[in-house]
């Protein structure tokens, strides 16, 4: 393989072809489905425009902004604390705060409503200890939009946290040191240096959060909050896919608005840093240390530990009632497919980034950005867009290579999740200033090996983070997996969903969810060693 990498060189033409090919893979399904918005619709469209559309839009906007703001607090603050200070448990919390990534949002929602509902854990213990009257008085109706906002933030803040972590601990450490030698206190370093320098990474993370919220279905539907995405499914259930796609198109436009907004907020600053020595973490003594620990630990407690323990407790009662046949092969399917997809998707994102940059003169960057459209459209809708070209290719070549195969599934993940790995990589390159240009140019003139020797090491943290994010996203993915999977093919996610769906609770889904979460933690533990400082 070394020989192989030594010899490959990419010509400009080669890059153009690569870019166009990638764009075709992504855009053909996207446009295939979006064109249906312009076909005649059934009667749902009238209902939607008459009764629902403005509510869909406001609910979607409100939920994304609410979750986004919470994720800012949940993401930025702990990232700052663990990368700049030493306090009890820091090392564990630094990793642990990434764990909620592996909990699917609908599992989080079902788990917490299960904890709080009138037959749930909280009511049970309050009634047992303080009597039924107290329990009734203390009843908390968890199924409300505000609590859902918090729950979604629990699942999604790691996107912001991970982005800020990279920025604070490697991207801006020299500048932070400079600020402290200039007499700037911790607080003022945060606001004057840390935060402004983390801005590109932060908005990249925040954009991912907002996309996830806009496309959220399971939890939102259970709480019966009518958003654009639930609207899409309502219309589709009503047999009117064309109207559903119209709503999806509106969703896409809102996503684009958020994209522009995040671009504008990122500003035009160019950040160039290189860091060899890690920043010296301050020991937080006494009450300050306890405060930092309490904040980070509470976040970990509520976003991960409590739901995890509740699921574990449910597993012990549920395992008898569920079919555990093929548990191991499901776990295997889940892990293998997620690893393969995550690595491939991250590498393709990398190629896309390079190709776009190298072809800047002919608008390459804008073209590359088109390749990220898939993240702004609900997976179920894209799945339909994928079916059509897959069927065409399969019948043309007379085989079943794409539709209903793992290969096809990985391609589908690629179309949808390219953006997830593209964001962190692009952010890292932006922090490297002109190095992206150098790197792309060197790829034109020098062998690919240079890329691995010279440019990749700088990007390692971002690369690793991109793989982790895509891994967990693929692992949790449902709408595309369900419809595009091979026959008789189950993953932990599909099985957890099956039980959650038939019972509309997380109890029976618990054993599968637990294993799913544990598998999601593996790459976090393994890969974070690679970016350990």
């Amino acid at each position, binding site marked *: *393989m070394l020989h192989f990498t030594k010899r490959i060189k990419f010509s400009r033409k080669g890059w153009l072809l690569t870019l166009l090919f990638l764009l075709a893979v992504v855009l053909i399904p996207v446009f295939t489905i979006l064109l249906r918005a312009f076909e005649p619709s059934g*009667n*749902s469209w009238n*209902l939607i425009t*008459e*009764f629902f559309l403005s509510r869909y839009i406001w609910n979607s906007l409100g939920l994304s902004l609410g979750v986004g703001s919470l994720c800012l607090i949940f993401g930025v603050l702990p990232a700052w604390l663990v990368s700049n200070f030493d306090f009890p448990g820091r090392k564990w919390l630094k990793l642990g705060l990434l764990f909620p990534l592996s909990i699917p949002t609908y599992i989080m929602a079902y788990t917490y409503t299960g904890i709080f*509902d*009138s*037959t*749930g854990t909280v*009511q049970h213990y309050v009634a047992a200890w303080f009597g039924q009257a107290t329990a009734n008085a203390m*009843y908390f*109706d968890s*199924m409300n939009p505000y609590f859902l906002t918090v729950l979604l933030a629990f699942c999604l803040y790691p996107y912001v946290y991970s982005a800020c972590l990279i920025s604070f601990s490697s991207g801006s450490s020299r500048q932070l040191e400079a600020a402290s030698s200039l007499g700037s206190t911790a607080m003022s370093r945060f606001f004057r240096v840390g935060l402004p320098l983390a801005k590109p990474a932060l908005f990249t993370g925040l954009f991912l959060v907002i996309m996830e919220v806009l496309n959220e279905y399971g939890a939102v*539907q*259970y*709480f*019966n909050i*009518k958003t654009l995405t*639930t609207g899409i*499914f*309502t219309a*589709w*259930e*009503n*047999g009117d896919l064309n109207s559903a796609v119209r709503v999806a198109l509106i969703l896409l436009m809102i996503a684009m608005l958020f994209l522009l907004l995040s671009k504008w907020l990122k500003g035009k600053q160019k950040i160039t840093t290189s860091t060899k020595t890690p920043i010296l973490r301050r020991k937080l003594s006494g009450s300050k240390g306890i405060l930092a620990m309490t904040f980070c630990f509470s976040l970990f407690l509520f976003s991960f530990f409590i739901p995890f323990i509740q699921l574990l407790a449910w597993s012990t*009662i*549920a395992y008898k009632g569920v*079919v555990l046949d093929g548990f191991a092969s499901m776990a295997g399917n889940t892990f*293998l*497919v997620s690893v*393969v997809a995550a*690595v*491939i998707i991250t590498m393709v994102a990398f190629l896309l980034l390079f190709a776009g940059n190298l072809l800047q003169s002919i608008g390459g960057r804008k073209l590359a950005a088109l390749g990220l459209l898939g993240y702004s459209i609900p997976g*179920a809708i894209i*799945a*339909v867009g994928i*079916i059509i070209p897959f*069927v065409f290719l399969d019948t043309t070549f007379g085989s*079943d290579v794409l*539709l*209903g*195969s*793992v290969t096809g599934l990985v391609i589908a993940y690629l179309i949808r999740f390219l953006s997830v790995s593209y964001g962190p990589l692009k952010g890292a390159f932006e922090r490297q200033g002109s190095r992206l240009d150098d790197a792309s140019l060197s790829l034109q003139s020098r062998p690919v090996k240079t890329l*691995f020797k010279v440019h*990749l090491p700088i990007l390692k943290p971002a690369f*690793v983070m991109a*793989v982790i994010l895509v891994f967990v996203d693929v692992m949790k993915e449902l709408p595309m997996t*369900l*419809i595009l*999977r*091979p*026959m*008789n093919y189950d993953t932990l996610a599909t099985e957890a969903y*099956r039980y959650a769906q*038939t*019972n*509309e*609770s997380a109890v029976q889904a618990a054993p599968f969810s637990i294993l799913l979460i544990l598998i999601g933690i593996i790459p976090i533990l393994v890969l974070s060693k*690679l970016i350990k400082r």
Partner: protein
Amino acid sequence: MKYTFGIFCMALFLSSCGSNTTENSEETTAPLNQEEATNDVGIVTVYSHRHYDVDKKIFTDFEEKTGIKVMVKEDKASKLIELIAQKGDDADVLITVDVARLEQAREKGILQPIESEVITGRVPDKFRGSENHWIGLTKRYRVLAYSKERVDPEELTTYEDLTDEKWMGKIAVRSSDNTYNQSLMASIIANSNQDEATKWAKGVVSNFCRSPKGNDRDQVKEVAAGRADIAIINTYYLGKLLNSENQAEVDAGNAVGLVFPNYEDRGAHVNISGAGVCTNAPNKENAVKLIEYLLSDEVQAMYSAANYEYPVVEGVESSELLQSWGTFKEDDLPLEEIGKLNSTAIAVFAASGWE
């Protein structure tokens, strides 16, 4: 650096592994199919919206009894219908959990009339499409669960009673996006008219104890906890509560009684989970065999025992729990009507402000 290169190597390695495994999996399934096909046993491909464990068991039993391999893909009916419409060459049987989706599938032209006297003989007319494009497998009743403590069931005999002012703030029900609610609404429309139905929906909405959310079991829990007096639910959700591992859920289930409404006039609203044979079914014979099997006394009893659904085949005894809920009158409206009125029902919900 070594790591990064390692990741790359791993990626290449795994991606080659990945493609190998897909090839492998196809090798193991595809030749098997052909082999079995030549043995004249073959396969049957099922696209199902029923995600229950008992369905898996039933398919395994079918495989053992007939040697026909059952290939299953489970997803939401709307997506499965779209997949069949786009691909359309491998699906044999479509199974859904309500009649509206079956009607949608028929309208899309992806179902063909079932020609089996065994099937048509076992399923009553009203639970079949008029040209037998689809047939019912199990029955589900949408009924009223009332607080045994606070409600006298004599005061609550019909769906229409729900609009009575005395239930102000007392009714718990789930979202109007739910197909069971939509089918209930369709039956109300079919038995009166759109205006009456809208008036009814508005009346029920004004009696809501909270804005609709959660699932049917959550509604029962609302009643058990005293925050509502009446919940509108499908019968099998109560079965699930009563058989829960969680004692608090069992208690909640025991706190309510069931009214199968309108027992003095048209009867309780009934919906089906049903199946159809796909237009381009490559294994049509096996598809019919499977559906026949699903209608056998044995399987009908399994549905009833494991999933608390009512057998669609007359004469099959339902489970003890179901029998304990008593006998009642069921609405004679052909379900096809309900399927066709689905869009109207959604429109009525929208106009009535039922979230």
